[in-house]
């Protein structure tokens, strides 16, 4: 260090000497070319070159001065030449000195013509000081570096002639990297196939797979449901989610190209002796005038065959049909002409074996209702036509009715019966629905034979009527349902003149309604929109609990529960019969359903009473 200082001092002395000599020469020279500025810059430039050499000898690396030395302005070059010449003339002591050549790679100058802006807050340097503010404007590197050099050598920033923004401590290359790094997280690279192969063959990957797959297989094998709730309290919601689709599921469709095409299904009935047999009656096919007008088909639900078991014809369109309950081989049909026909499947004939006469003694109007009532030994076929005539027949002899009765309301008005139903377990009392929107109760025999009471409430002709018939501890037989063209279904009791409740969820004529044979609070309804609804009155009385729409834009004309209560058959106006499975949790009644239904009915009655009070108040 000491000799260095000594050397520096020696060099300083020499500099002084040289300076003095040059000044002398300037005075001596009478050269007009250079101005005042150049005199200043000349010694400066000389100084610079000299000091550069000196510094180089000392071994101090230059800070980006090499280039500047190369890229000197031409005027400066001239001056150097001059100064060199002058220096050689002045007999300066020149001594050979070791020149340590150090090659320094030029620092990369990355010049930007745009502004760069960092995404985050100002990054902190290593020494803790904040970096330059966000916007850095890079200018012409030559000039800025030149100024920077001279300034760093001699004075401070103040002597800058141009006043350009200084870029001193920023490392341009680094910012580029930063930007790239910040872009990476949002971009998800896709691995190429080769990369994937590489990884797959990596032994580390193999060990990872073998270890974790062991754990995973153990975890997979455990299949306990930690969320199981034994109290069943959550069962309701779970059912809704999981079994919503299974409440009503289409099982199969019965359709025969030859016979059921373009015919509306008018009625359905399941056989009691053979629960898989279903009889369906069909209306006339307008497109085929030569085909018989009335068709009855017996379908088999047990087997997969798509053709009916039996095909029965008759000359007039069939409006209703039923199995003769106590004769497994007989099928009864009521026609449009008023005839009642009887088929027997033991006989190999498609036409009826027995027919009622078309006379005034029997019916002359369409027969929409046929039913076999009674017991095994004492039963009758009851039929009601739309002229209000009710006849009872013996199945052995259809040539004349055993008993016939005119159903008249108030002595003169004949009732146009569209549907009827016997009350549960009763062979005498029944209810009928008529075209004049009224429901009537009636008796067959006894002192009150004929129409007894009239129930008003519907605003359209009644399409179907069904009485409650579920056996149980609590008897709900006074209650019956009616459906009508006025888009509603109403629940009545034969003891009250006013209906208990009106179900108004449909938006088309409701064509059929029927109680479930096993569940006291469940009933099904079909309407003209192709909708099949299941109403669970203990659950919800305003909307159906399950509902499905048949595809194909058809109207459903009739529905019939299977006696098991788990299937329901619906017939549409294109000749198709759809069998639906009802989910077990919905179809099977729980033990508390009966008492719950009592409460439901009481509630509904209360609402009805309130409604009536309100309407009475309004009238006043």
């Amino acid at each position: 260090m000491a000799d260095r200082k000594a050397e520096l001092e020696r060099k300083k002395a020499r500099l002084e000497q040289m300076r003095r000599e040059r000044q002398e020469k300037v005075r001596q020279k009478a050269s007009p070319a250079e101005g005042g500025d150049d005199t200043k810059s000349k010694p400066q430039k000389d100084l610079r070159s000299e000091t550069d050499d000196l510094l180089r000898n000392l071994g101090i690396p230059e800070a980006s001065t090499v280039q500047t030395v190369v890229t000197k302005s031409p005027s400066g070059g001239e001056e150097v030449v001059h100064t060199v010449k002058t220096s050689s003339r002045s007999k300066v002591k020149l001594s050979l000195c070791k020149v340590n050549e150090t090659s320094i790679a030029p620092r990369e100058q990355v010049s930007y013509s745009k502004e760069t802006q960092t995404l985050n807050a100002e990054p902190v340097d290593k020494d803790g000081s904040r970096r330059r503010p966000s916007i850095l404007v890079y200018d012409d590197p030559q000039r800025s570096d030149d100024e920077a050099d001279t300034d760093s050598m001699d004075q401070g920033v103040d002597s800058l002639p141009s006043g350009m923004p200084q870029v001193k401590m920023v490392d341009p290359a680094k910012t580029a990297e930063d930007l790239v790094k910040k872009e990476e997280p949002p971009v998800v690279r896709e691995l190429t196939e080769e990369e994937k192969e590489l990884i797959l063959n990596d032994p580390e990957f193999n060990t990872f797979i073998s270890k974790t797959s062991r754990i995973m297989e153990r975890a997979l094998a455990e299949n306990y449901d930690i969320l199981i709730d034994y109290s069943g309290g959550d069962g309701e919601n779970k059912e809704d989610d999981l079994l919503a689709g299974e409440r009503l599921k289409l099982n199969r469709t019965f359709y025969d190209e030859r016979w059921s095409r373009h015919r509306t299904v008018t009625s359905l009935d399941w056989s009691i002796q053979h629960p898989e047999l279903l009889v369906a009656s069909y209306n006339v096919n307008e497109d085929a005038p030569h085909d018989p007008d009335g068709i009855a088909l017996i379908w088999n639900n047990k087997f997969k065959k798509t053709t009916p078991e039996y095909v029965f014809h008759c000359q007039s369109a069939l409006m209703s049909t039923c199995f003769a309950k106590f004769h497994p081989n007989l099928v009864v049909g009521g026609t449009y002409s008023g005839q009642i026909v009887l088929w027997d499947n033991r006989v190999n004939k498609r036409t009826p074996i027995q027919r009622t006469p078309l006379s005034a003694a029997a019916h002359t109007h369409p027969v929409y209702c046929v039913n076999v009532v009674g017991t095994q030994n004492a039963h009758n076929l009851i039929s009601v036509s739309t002229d209000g005539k009710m006849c009872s027949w013996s199945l052995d002899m259809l040539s004349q009715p055993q008993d016939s009765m005119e159903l008249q309301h108030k002595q003169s008005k004949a009732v146009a019966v569209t549907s009827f139903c016997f009350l549960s377990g009763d062979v005498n009392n029944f209810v009928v629905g008529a075209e004049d929107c009224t429901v009537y109760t009636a008796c067959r025999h006894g002192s009150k034979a004929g129409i007894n009471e009239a129930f008003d409430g519907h605003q359209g002709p009644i399409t179907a009527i069904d009485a409650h018939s579920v056996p149980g501890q609590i008897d709900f037989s006074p209650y019956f349902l009616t459906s009508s063209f006025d888009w509603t279904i109403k629940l009545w009791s034969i003891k009250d003149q006013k209906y208990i409740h009106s179900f108004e969820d449909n938006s088309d004529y409701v064509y059929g309604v029927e109680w479930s044979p096993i569940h006291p609070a469940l009933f099904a309804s079909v309407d003209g929109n192709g909708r099949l609804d299941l109403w669970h009155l203990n659950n919800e009385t305003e909307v159906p609990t399950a509902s499905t729409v048949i595809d194909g834009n058809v109207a459903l004309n009739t529905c019939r529960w299977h006696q098991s209560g788990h299937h329901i058959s619906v017939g549409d106006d294109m000749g198709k019969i759809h069998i639906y499975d009802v989910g077990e949790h919905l179809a099977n009644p729980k033990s508390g359903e009966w008492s719950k239904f009592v409460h439901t009915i009481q509630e509904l009655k209360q609402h009805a009473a309130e409604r009536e009070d309100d309407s009475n108040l309004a009238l006043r």
Partner: protein
Amino acid sequence: MSEVEETLKRIQSHRGVQGTIVVNSEGIPIRTTLDNSTTVQYAGLIHQLAQKARSTVRELDPQNDLTFLRIRSKKNEIMCAPGNEYILLVIQTPDAS
């Protein structure tokens, strides 16, 4: 067939398994049995969640580490076994038997 393939196939054929995905440390799926869009979705989301879970475990106890992550939802169960560099994901539907 390589062992890796065999193992993954065995896992996939397990009862109720919907899909198997192997993800690397960056969240990029390496091997999958599901379709591309689902895989990318699962890989990105579960990877982030596993990272978060791991950092949580580590923060609570620096000497602890995440070994297994199991997410049980209404419809299925996602099991995630993280390794040092990779993560094995299996999506299973639990059968309510």
